[in-house]
């Protein structure tokens, strides 16, 4: 700027216009890049919105035939039978039971695993165990489904006489094992992010490693640990193949893990794979079921988010 005032007027003009041209080009490139970035970011949002819109639209036609009261209170779900009932409760009970079993397995094991890996394992152990755990994430869920049906359930039948071949216990446990690496990996990251100065403060007070892990590191990382649990819950509620294969596909209003039942996801896959004509009530019922599934995960996510906020620590 200062040098510009010292040169001749016409030269100054030329310089400024050249610079402006450059500015315009740079500005344009910036805008294009910005637009492309926004497009990438929006694609996920747009897909989600489209899914919600379709779920709502198809569900609306479903609720033209079936009253919401029946949907929420009827204790039978038999949309494909002659005597059709449209009560979502049996599917919800199946979903909640299998998810609860899975979380009873995954949360303790995942949390203990995270504490061990973050606070106790040597560097070498951690670098060996973590990739193996994460490999477990890559196993297709259909493999877990067969594992539940053909290995875990027969094994359980040895201890629990009268356990049917299709039941919620086996797939619930297997689903839990499947979710362990998700929980342990995210929870461990949260614990490792706790600053060393906080651990030093605990050790300097004469605490042992275990006391430091339980009384200081875990509360400090609680927000991230809860995030890990939310991830686990979403995985359990949304899991399809394991329950579709091993829990039986009979909608059954029960919370007894020894019985067979169907879940929302298992029902959807069963119907979507079938040959129901588009527009029939049976076809539309999977959208209503999907809507319920989405609302359930949404509620769990919101609850988790609120708990996280309550426990959020800053350091």
């Amino acid at each position: 700027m200062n040098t510009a005032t010292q040169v001749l007027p016409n030269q100054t003009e030329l310089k400024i216009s050249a610079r402006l041209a450059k500015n315009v080009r740079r500005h344009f490139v910036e805008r294009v890049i910005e637009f492309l970035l926004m497009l990438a970011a929006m694609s996920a949002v747009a897909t989600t919105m489209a899914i919600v819109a379709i779920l709502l639209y198809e569900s609306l036609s479903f609720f033209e035939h079936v009253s919401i009261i029946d949907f929420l209170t009827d204790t039978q779900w038999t949309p494909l039978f002659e005597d059709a009932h449209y009560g979502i409760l049996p599917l919800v009970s199946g979903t909640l039971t299998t998810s609860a079993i899975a979380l009873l397995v995954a949360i303790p094991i995942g949390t203990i695993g995270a504490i061990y890996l973050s606070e106790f394992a040597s560097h070498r152990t951690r670098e060996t165990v973590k990739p193996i755990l994460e490999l477990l994430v890559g196993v297709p869920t259909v493999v877990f489904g067969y594992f539940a049906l053909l290995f875990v359930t027969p094994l359980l039948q040895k201890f629990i006489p009268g356990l049917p071949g299709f039941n919620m216990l086996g797939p619930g446990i297997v689903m839990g094992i499947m979710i362990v690496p998700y929980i342990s990996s995210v929870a461990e990251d949260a614990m490792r992010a706790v600053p060393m100065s906080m651990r030093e403060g605990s050790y300097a007070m004469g605490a042992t490693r275990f006391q430091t892990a339980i009384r200081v590191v875990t509360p400090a990382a609680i927000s991230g640990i809860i995030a890990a649990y939310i991830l686990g819950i979403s995985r359990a509620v949304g899991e399809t193949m394991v329950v579709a294969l091993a829990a039986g596909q009979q909608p059954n209003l029960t919370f007894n893990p020894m019985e067979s039942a169907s879940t929302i996801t298992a029902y959807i896959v069963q119907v979507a794979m079938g040959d129901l004509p588009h527009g029939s009530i049976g076809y539309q019922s999977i959208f209503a079921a999907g809507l319920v599934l989405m609302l359930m995960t949404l509620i769990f996510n919101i609850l988790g988010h609120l708990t996280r906020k309550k426990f959020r620590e800053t350091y």
Partner: protein
Amino acid sequence: MVTTSTPIKAESRDLNFYYNGGHKALKGITMPLYEKKITALIGPSGCGKSTFLRCFNRMHDLYPGNRYDGQIIMHPDNTNVLANGVDPIEVRMRISMVFQKPNPFPKSIYENVAYGLRVRGENNKRVVDDKVEEALKGAALWDEVKNRLHDLAFNLSGGQQQRLCIARALATDPEIMLFDEPTSALDPIATANIEELMSELRNKLTILVVTHNMQQAARVSDYTAYMYLGELIEYGDTDMIFTRPTRKETEDYITGKFG
């Protein structure tokens, strides 16, 4: 040099220290800590003063590959803190520490102070209540927090957090308290509070403080040690070190010609 009848609380004898990888960070340090006195460690960054301080409560044990060579003897029981058979947890029960940055735990004010008692298995509410109050009073924090003992410690200001950490360290009645640059993250008023507090604590326990700030050493300490490149260059009465140092290096450092 130091003519006093004050008993010695602890002393390092020919202490060498090696970090993981073999770097020799302390070279043959021999130095006393007099009982119920404040000893300050001064010297430029990287001279080993924090490393030396952290030998006293075996903090280097937390990281693999570190090695001590030499002795730190605690009196009157003549325990060598660095001996293999001595449990570092036992040592830390007797020697507590306040860090450079306030590091309260993600707990209430009350539970922060009670932490040392809890890890020692003390759960009697009356005992813990009394100790917490005594420690908070000792750290000049009681009046500011007595009505919100169950608030989260992170809600306190930086200076209050540091006094909370001092209260936490005080609650277990340690014999020696280590301060690792306790005011470097604080503003001047909070610093003045902490310095005043340290002077008061002198009546109860022995203090070793690392400081970057020479004026602070001159203000609060009874004895001063000047370290450079892992060696103890000069040790003596604080007045003497700051007015008539015997070594040229010490004089250069305290007059600001160097460092």
